[in-house]
């Protein structure tokens, strides 16, 4: 029983991070029909920026804030400089571009930050909380992870549902031509969308890194899990991405706890294949199936 509870708690915490990362992918997919594979190394770079700041003797929170801000800027710059020129052409061009960017950022990070494992601090304790005389697998940092992701998601919902900018961003994502006719500066909305997505990706990067080891490739598996979670949710639906992330985190945690941790990656791919075969439109998408 205790093992089950711990597995579930671990799965939910991890699922929250996958959810955040999936959300980052979905934000970009919705508005540009591009799967941004470079999201992983982008989040890695911003996490390293936080690490540099923390190792220079500043507080964890300064590093945390700087990483999120760097994510915002990096997303905007990538969209403006690299993606904009291939806008309006076949989406595959942009997707290949993000794969190229994946490799380039990796290589640069290895040169700048060193191609080795470094430990990343956590803001809160990483020991389990004691309930009575047993210790459960929910750590202080785990709670922080869940809260941080929930807060960011809540802010995004507020932005998209209740603000003018959010309305314009949704309009631009649904139909660029019509949005333009109605006076929406679609280019700006896309830049903002990439910036926000990259910020959410950076948050995921920081949360995965907390209390663990980072190196230039530490986010690579997360982009796969995030992508699977996004597909589970239908790629188009932010809410779906969140549920997809939680489901995936939970399933992988159960696989890891009861079957064997070496099978986690395989299980993720199996889930991806089953979803694509049985319900290619995702579990929550309204409407047509997607080309994936």
């Amino acid at each position, binding site marked *: 029983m205790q093992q089950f509870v711990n597995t579930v708690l671990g799965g939910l915490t991890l699922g929250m991070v996958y959810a955040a990362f999936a959300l980052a992918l979905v934000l970009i997919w919705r508005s540009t029909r591009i799967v941004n594979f470079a999201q992983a190394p982008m989040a890695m770079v911003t996490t390293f920026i936080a690490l540099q700041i923390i190792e220079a003797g500043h507080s964890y929170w300064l590093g945390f804030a700087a990483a999120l801000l760097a994510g915002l800027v990096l997303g905007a710059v990538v969209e403006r400089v690299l993606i904009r020129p291939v806008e309006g052409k076949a989406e595959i061009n942009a997707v290949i571009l993000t794969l190229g960017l994946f490799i380039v950022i990796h290589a640069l990070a290895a040169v700048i930050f060193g191609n080795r494992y470094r430990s990343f601090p956590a803001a809160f304790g990483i020991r389990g909380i004691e309930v009575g005389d047993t210790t459960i697998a929910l750590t202080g940092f785990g709670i922080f992870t869940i809260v941080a992701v929930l807060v960011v998601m809540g802010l995004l919902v507020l932005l998209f549902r209740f603000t003018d900018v959010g309305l314009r961003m949704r309009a631009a994502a649904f139909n660029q*031509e019509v*949005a333009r006719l109605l*006076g929406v500066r679609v280019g700006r909305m896309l830049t903002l969308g990439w910036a926000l997505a990259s910020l959410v990706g950076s948050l995921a990067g920081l949360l995965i890194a907390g209390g663990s080891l980072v190196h230039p490739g530490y986010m690579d598996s997360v982009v796969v899990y995030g992508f699977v979670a996004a597909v589970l949710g239908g790629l188009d639906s932010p809410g779906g991405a969140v549920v997809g992330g939680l489901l995936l985190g939970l399933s992988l945690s159960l696989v890891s706890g009861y079957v064997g941790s070496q099978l986690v990656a395989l299980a993720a791919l199996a889930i991806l294949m089953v979803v694509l075969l049985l319900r290619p439109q995702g579990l929550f998408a309204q409407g047509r199936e997607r080309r994936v």
Partner: protein
Amino acid sequence: MEEPAGFTMRDVTVTFGGLTALSEVSLTARPRQVLGVIGPNGAGKTTLFNVACGFVTPDSGALTWRGRQLQRLRPHDLAGLGIARTLQGLGLFDRMTVLDNVLVGADHIGRAGFWSGLLGAPRATRDEARLRERALAALDELGVAAYADRSPASLPYALRKKVSLARALVAEPALLLLDEPASGLSDEEMADLGERLRGLTDRMAVMLVEHHMDLVMSVCDDLVVLDFGRVIATGSPADVRDDPAVRAAYLGEAVEAEPSRGKGA
């Protein structure tokens, strides 16, 4: 009030690859008038609208609006210039409510600054309440305010058309470009639309691409007839109806079918 000069195109030519879609087309949409653009399928009507709203940049020719030349016209500038367009496919955002659809159209009128909007500053909140009222008023004028919270996808076609018209009208444009507003409407709905269009002319210039000759003949003050990208006739509906070139282009079909109906509205 001083009458601002309307919208003109002068010698506009558009080619796609080797195909000439528009050839030296000139026209004027005057304030308080309805200008109809008609012609057989493939005559270049849609291309003409796409030029007018900046989707297509002409190879040569000039556009003016209220006496000013429109240099490089970009679609998102249109709304600010007081020009609105509806689309044949309506282009409603199906995953937003009807009200939100119209709000996007209202957005540029009283838009709060980007950051104050993002941070929910009081001024932005006030602006938004005002825009919301205007959007509801626009829906109400077309009799679809009751559906404000529904998804446009859940409404019958005729109502969706009204929503898209409300969205175009909410910003109080000075020029309204209507792309086949009557397609898919019943006779009754079409008569209603005709009256509505006449009613708009005290506020704006209207340019209309339409297949239904009854509507065109009863609503338009002036007509431009396109065939193979060229203007083959211009003038009042009566003049155009009697024009031999027009009769030849249409092979006597729709134009002749209802010769007796004059200006109904």
